[in-house]
C-alpha cells in the first residue's frame, strides 16, 4: 500500500495520473485497494495476508487492518478519483477507536485484542488523517454521529510530552528530536484542532512550545552534505572536524563563501560576514541536529512549516536549488536521497516532489507543471478542498 501511495501521489504531483493510467487500469487499481479493505473496518497493508475462503475466527488475527495502510488506501482512492462510497466508514471509525491506547498514542495493528506497533506519532498522524477524511463534509453520513470520537485530549497531551528540550518532537519522551516525528506530531495536532501551544511551557503536560519548535525547524536548513556521498554510518563529524562541502553550483558565480567555515581559526573580518543577502546558495534540510541534508527531510521540515502556516520562514530558493540541482537525478529522473547518488528511488522522488511543491510559488508550480500540495494531509490541495466542500 505504501509503494502504491508513493507512486500514485508522485504522479498526481506532476499532473500525470490521467496520461499514465488508462480508464481500465484505474478501475483495476481501485478494485485492488478495495480488495485490501477489511469487512470490520480499515485496510490491510497488502493482499498477501488475506486467507480468502479459508479465513476464520482463529486466523483473522493474522490479517489485521493497519493504520498507516488505511490512511494511504484512502488517499490513493482519492487520487484515482474514487469518492470513497464503498469504504466501510462507520466500521473504520469504530476500529480507529480501538487502535488508541490509554496514553493517547495509536498503534499499527490489533492482534488478539492487543494493540501492536510503536507508540510514536507516525500512527497518531495517520489516525487523525483517517478521522479527518472520514468525518469530512463529503464523507460523513447520518450514522457517523453515533460513532464516538477518538480521545483527542489524551492524544494532544501524549504528543506534547514528546517535545524535546530543543523544541523538536521525538518518537517518545526524552528521545532525540527528529524532523519526521516533528512533522507527524504537528500534523496530528493540527488535524486534532489543537490550539494548546503556548509561548512558555509549564508543567501541566498539555502545553507545547511553538516558538521553540519553529526555532528548531529553522535550524534544519543546512548546506552540510556528505563529502563524497559516504554512507551515514561512516560519517564522523567531529574527530575530523565538520567538513562542509562547498557547493559549487553553476549559478554560483559571485565567489562568496557559502557558509561559515568552522575550521577557521582567525576571527573573520566584518566584510567576510556581512555578505549580500541574495546568495546563490543551495541548502537542503537535515532531520536531526548536526546531520547532513537528505531529500526526504526537505519534505518533513518544509511541510512542518507549512502546517504551522509559516512556509515563508524557509529559504525557499536555497531549498529549490538543493532539490532541482543537487538531488534530482541528472538523467534518470526522480530524486535521490543524497546529491550524487547512483540511483533515484520511489520514496525520495515522491518526497522531493512534494517538498518542491510546498516551497514553490503558484507561478513556479505552474511553470513546472506541479500541483499544489496540502502540507498537513500530504495530498493534492484540490482534493483536500474537495473533502471539505458541500455536497451538491
Amino acid at each position, binding site marked *: 500500500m505504501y509503494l502504491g501511495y508513493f507512486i500514485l501521489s508522485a504522479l498526481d504531483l506532476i499532473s500525470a495520473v490521467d496520461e499514465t493510467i488508462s480508464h481500465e487500469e484505474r478501475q483495476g487499481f481501485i478494485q485492488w485497494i478495495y480488495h485490501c479493505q477489511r469487512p470490520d473496518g480499515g485496510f490491510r497493508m497488502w493482499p498477501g495476508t488475506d486467507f480468502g475462503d*479459508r479465513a476464520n475466527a482463529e*486466523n483473522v488475527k493474522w490479517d489485521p487492518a493497519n493504520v498507516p495502510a488505511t490512511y494511504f488506501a484512502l488517499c490513493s482512492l482519492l487520487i484515482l478519483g474514487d469518492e470513497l462510497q464503498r469504504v466501510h466508514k462507520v466500521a473504520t471509525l469504530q476500529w480507529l477507536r480501538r487502535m488508541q491506547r490509554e496514553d493517547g498514542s495509536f498503534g499499527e495493528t490489533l492482534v488478539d485484542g492487543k494493540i501492536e506497533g510503536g507508540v510514536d506519532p507516525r500512527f497518531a498522524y495517520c489516525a487523525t488523517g483517517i478521522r479527518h477524511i472520514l468525518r469530512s463534509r463529503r464523507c460523513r453520513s447520518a450514522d457517523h454521529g453515533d460513532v464516538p470520537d477518538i480521545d483527542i485530549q489524551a492524544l494532544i497531551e501524549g504528543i506534547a510530552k514528546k517535545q524535546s528540550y530543543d523544541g523538536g518532537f521525538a518518537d517518545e519522551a526524552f528521545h*532525540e528530536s527528529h524532523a519526521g516525528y516533528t512533522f507527524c506530531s504537528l500534523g496530528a495536532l493540527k488535524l486534532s484542532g489543537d490550539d494548546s501551544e503556548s509561548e512558555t511551557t509549564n508543567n501541566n503536560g498539555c502545553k507545547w512550545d511553538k516558538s521553540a519548535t519553529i526555532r*528548531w525547524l529553522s535550524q534544519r536548513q543546512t548546506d552540510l552534505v556528505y563529502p563524497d556521498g559516504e554512507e551515514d554510518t561512516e560519517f564522523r563529524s567531529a*574527530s575530523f572536524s565538520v567538513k562542509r562541502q562547498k557547493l559549487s553550483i553553476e549559478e554560483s558565480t559571485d565567489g562568496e563563501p557559502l557558509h561559515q567555515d568552522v575550521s577557521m581559526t582567525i576571527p573573520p573580518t*566584518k566584510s567576510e560576514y556581512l555578505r549580500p543577502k541574495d546568495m546563490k*546558495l543551495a541548502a537542503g534540510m537535515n532531520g536531526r541536529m548536526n546531520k547532513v541534508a537528505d531529500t526526504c527531510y526537505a519534505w518533513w521540515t518544509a511541510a512542518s512549516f507549512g502546517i504551522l502556516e509559516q512556509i515563508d*520562514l524557509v*529559504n525557499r530558493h536555497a531549498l529549490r536549488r538543493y532539490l532541482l540541482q543537487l538531488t534530482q537525478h541528472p538523467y534518470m529522473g526522480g530524486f535521490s536521497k543524497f546529491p550524487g547518488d547512483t540511483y533515484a528511488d520511489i520514496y525520495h522522488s515522491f518526497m522531493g516532489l512534494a517538498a518542491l511543491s510546498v516551497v514553490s510559488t503558484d507561478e513556479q508550480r505552474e511553470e513546472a507543471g506541479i500541483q499544489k500540495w496540502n502540507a498537513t494531509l500530504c495530498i493534492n490541495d484540490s482534493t483536500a478542498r474537495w473533502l471539505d466542500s458541500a455536497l451538491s
Partner: protein
Amino acid sequence: MDSDEEERIPYSQRKEWSDVIPLPQDDGPDPVVSIAYKDEFRETMDYFRAVYHSDERSARSLDLTSDAIGLNPGNYTVWHFRRLVLVAVGADLHDEMDFVEHVAENNSKNYQIWHHRRWLAEKLGAEAMRKELKFTQKILALDAKNYHAWSHRQWVLQVLGGWEDELDYCQQLLEDDVYNNSAWNQRYFVITRSPLLGGLQASRESEVRYAADAIIANPENESPWRYLRGLYKGDNNSIVSNPEVSTVCLDVLKKNPYCVFALSLLLDLLCYGFQPRDEFRRIVESSRNSDSGPLDHKLASTVCSILENVDPMRSNYWSWRKSNLPTLAC
C-alpha cells in the same frame, strides 16, 4: 544467512515438509504494485502462510521463520508468529538473542528487530541488562546516531537499570565526537531521569558549566547551545537570572561578534527580559552593518538585523523574529 552459500533445497523437495501444502499469495485483482519476487522468496512465504494458517507452533516453524526473516526482516507478521512459536516450543531465549544480533548486523535500522529485542529483554528481565547495554554500545560504535539503538538503550535503563556508567558513556561519546547530538540528548536524559542523580535542577549548575566549556571550544556547534537552553526548559526566569549563561554569550561574542548561536541565545535572553550590560551593547552595536540604517531602539532588534546578515540562509526567520519581538524585550 550463512546457509546462502550452500545449495538451497526447495521446501517442496524436503521430506520433512512433504505434509504441508503451500498457500500461495493472493495479489488481488490488478495489483497497483506487483512485486517480482524471487522463486525462493515466493516459495518460503507460501510455506510460511500455510504454517501460520494452521497455527503450527513447532521447531520446523521456527526454522521457517528464520528463513523468512533472512529474506525480509521487515515482515512484522513473521516476527510476531515467531514469538508465539518461541514460547510454545520453550526455546532458549539466549540463542534467540544471538539470532537477533546476527540479523541486526545488516539491518540495524529495522523497527521489527528492535521490537523483538525489547520483547526478549522483557522476558529475560534483569539478567538481560548488561547484555543489552553492551549490544546497543556495539551498534552505536558502528553508527553513533542510530535512533533505534538509542531508543532501546533508554528503555533498558528505565526498565532494567544500569545507570551507573551512563554519564561516563555519554562523556566518552562526546569526546569522540562533540557534534554527536544523540549523545547530548542522552546526557540530558541521564541528568533528568537517572535515579542516582538528583534531577535536572540539582545538576543544572554543573551542566551549565559543562555546556559552556563545550561551547567555548566549538562555538559553531549547535548541540551544546541547545543543551544549555534545554537545561532551563519552561523556566525562562532562571535562564535570564543566571549570569553564567549570559557570560557564555559574551565570551563567545568577544572572540567572534558574528557567532550565530551566541547572537541567537542573546536574542532569546533579551526576549525573556534580560537587561544587557553596556558591554553587550557595545559589542553588538559595533557589529552592525553601517548600511543597515539608523540604530534600532531595541538591542534585540539590532541583534536580529545582524543575524539577517550573518545567517543569510535564515534571513527570513530572523526578520520574522524582529517583527515579532515581545514588548518586554530590551
